[in-house]
């Protein structure tokens, strides 16, 4: 048998699958050098992020306005595939940006709105009042969230929004046990072997 070449994948073949060892091309970027304190890559990246942080409040205000426009489009045109998607992506981006941009309290209502949109089988059944409550909560947190007394109010408000949404989704999906299990299953925590 010939030795596999370093720049080619080697393949072990089994009855129903192949096990492939690709060439390790990225080895060229590895070294065993010990990082000095002045050359801490993570610290340098955090500093780069800190230099951007002056723009974060403006960015989040823009995201809140985008969500508001998406909500108004739904009110004007009703829930269509297009208006639903615009609303979902606006909420989804806030969910993703929230903590990085310094608004951790926004993650729960934004995620709750995503779940409401995503897991309601017939989008015409999504209660507009519940959408309004989510969007208004997000905008209020962006506007007032830095106030010292806001943290507890935000926590209570967003927890209640999530509960009401989950109750609605449980009713809407009561005849879909597998979907319901996915909806109500706990999130995978960082460090889970599946990640």
């Amino acid at each position: 048998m010939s030795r596999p070449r370093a720049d080619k994948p080697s393949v072990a073949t089994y009855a129903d699958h192949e096990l492939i060892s690709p060439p390790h091309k990225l080895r060229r970027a590895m070294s065993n050098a010990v990082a000095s304190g002045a050359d801490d890559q993570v610290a340098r990246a955090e500093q780069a992020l800190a230099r951007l942080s002056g723009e974060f409040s403006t960015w989040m205000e823009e995201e809140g306005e985008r969500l508001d426009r998406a909500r108004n489009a739904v009110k004007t045109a009703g829930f269509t595939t297009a208006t639903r998607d615009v609303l979902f992506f606006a909420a989804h981006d806030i969910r993703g940006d929230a903590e990085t941009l310094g608004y951790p309290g926004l993650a729960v209502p934004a995620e709750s709105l995503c779940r409401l949109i995503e897991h309601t089988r017939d989008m015409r059944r999504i209660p507009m009042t519940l959408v309004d409550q989510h969007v208004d909560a997000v905008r209020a947190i962006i506007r007032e969230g830095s106030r010292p007394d806001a943290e507890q109010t935000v926590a209570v408000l967003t927890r209640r929004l999530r509960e009401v949404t989950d109750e609605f989704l449980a009713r809407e999906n009561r005849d879909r046990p597998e979907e319901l299990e996915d909806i109500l299953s706990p999130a995978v925590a960082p460090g889970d072997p599946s990640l």
Partner: protein
Amino acid sequence: MIRIDFSALRFLVVEDNPHMRRILRALLLGFGSREVHEAEDGAAGLDAFNKFTPDIVIVDWAMPIFDGLEFARMIRQPDTNASPFTPIIMLTGHSERKRVMDARDAGVTEIMVKPVSANALHQRIVNVIANPRRYIRTKSYFGPDRRRNTTPGYSGPERRKGGRVDLDRLHRSSADN
């Protein structure tokens, strides 16, 4: 301790949100990377992938029209794509188990649940370089070996069948190169 020379790596960031793209670029440049390409959707990402042949792709899951899962499936096409083994780090705002499994089944190498942080991103990049995974090809899947851990006490059925036929046969698509 393994240290990564980021200046030797070429990144592609596929993300529809301009704010998150700026954050990811800032982090990668902060790590020391000098080459970071960006695309704002899956289709543009595929073009950029073919044009720049990145070493590592960072892709958002949820994007309009052509999402991160579809993007990953298109990269993991060993018969049509010249770089099917490129590590893919997928960002997602959601961490439901089903989503994680869907990403895994699309051939994603690492999944990173937002919020994005310098430490979490650095760890994922170090992991794909320092601990490269073997790949599996079946009738319905091509991508990193989804079995990350072995369970010594496992007594269930073995779903992968067959004996080892040829350890050193080179991959069909590259044997003639």
